[in-house]
């Protein structure tokens, strides 16, 4: 294995059902239902998906949902804002733990 990520592997996602297919089927059915238009539009769901993809830093999801956002009618500005939201929440999540550090420091310091 020369490298861990290969863009062609995205097309092979379905092969995850090679073993215990019934589990993969449940996932793909649920996934399909989640992404259907509901109280949120496809565009809104695609923007959320792209934000999450950046937060979990999944190159497959970023590839799929960058295009998915365009195919749902999102603009470049909306896509960029979704990425900023993901980045800001990630940054905030790190920073807010500074309070825990402060608590720990206060506990041990005279």
């Amino acid at each position, binding site marked *: 294995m020369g490298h861990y990520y290969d863009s062609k592997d995205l097309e092979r996602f379905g092969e995850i059902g090679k073993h215990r297919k019934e589990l993969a089927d449940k996932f793909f059915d649920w996934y*399909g239902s989640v992404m*259907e*238009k509901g109280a949120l539009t*496809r565009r809104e769901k*695609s923007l959320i998906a792209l934000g999450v993809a950046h937060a979990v830093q999944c190159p497959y999801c970023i590839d*799929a949902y960058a295009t998915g956002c365009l195919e*749902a*009618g999102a*603009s*470049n500005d909306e896509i960029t804002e979704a990425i900023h939201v993901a980045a800001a929440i990630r940054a905030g999540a790190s920073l807010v733990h500074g309070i825990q550090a402060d608590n720990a420091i206060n506990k041990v310091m005279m």
Partner: protein
Amino acid sequence: MTVPAFSSKLQKPLTTYGVNCLQVNLGKLCNQACKHCHVDAGPKRTEIMDRETVQHIIAAAEMVRPELVDLTGGAPEMNPHFRELVEALRDLGVPRIMDRCNLTILLEPGFDWVANFLAKHRIEVTASLPFYVGEHVDRQRGKGVFSRSIEGLRILNGLGYGDSLPLNLVYNPQGAYLPPDQDDLEQLYKRHLAEEYGIRFNELYTITNMPIARFKTYLERSENYTRYMNKLVSRFNPGTLDGLMCRSLISVGYDGRLYDCDFNQMLDMTIDAEQPHISQLRDIMLTGRPIRTDDHCYGCTAGHGSSCGGALDTEDEAIAV
């Protein structure tokens, strides 16, 4: 990947229902040269329909009595016989005459007559506006095209288009991806264009970019061709087949030659007839004629489908990972 032959996807060969729409390409001359243009139209093109062929079009409209005559190009208004053709079609009582307008032609020197002429003859305007955000439009159609398109739309709105006269817009993707859901996108267009520019229009048509001509070259150069074709093939939707435009349309090239659709025209695939020319229409089978297909037909049958009048199958489609 080898693209499976389109014919292998069909349970029986596609045939025509008749001629509901007479689509006429008045020439490849255009004031714009857009990156996605399947006609390869532009300001330097010299192929343009002559008066003799225009007379054949008028005779054909009288003979087949189509519901719709769809005038396209290039910029159809740049053909010197455009007005004569439209007036003759109106005199014949053709129920619907459509002008596929790129909007910027309305602002070109020497073409200030176009908007008033269209309104006077109550011509349906189907106008290209590939997105509701300027940056996206200019990237595809050239710098400043979006703001000039908005100016063109304001002129049309001022004449009653979008209210008492039909004004429809056409979306096409700005690259190697498929169009959004037509109804959802129409709502977005209507909200943005009304709030930001005060523009009104009737319907939005979403159209898939066909993997031919200038767009195919782009796909190959950007190494997107295989992926794009994979996407089209994997999203083949048999539910689109009954409504395909080629089943009820005949397409006439600038030189009078006949095709099953505008895309076959650009690929030089004339209809299945001994003399595929508008002058020979009387001897051509209009109903039940086999339609010529090839790989590009996946473009009209992927996902929600695509036609000159937008999506074909508006049932909700599962999103692909």
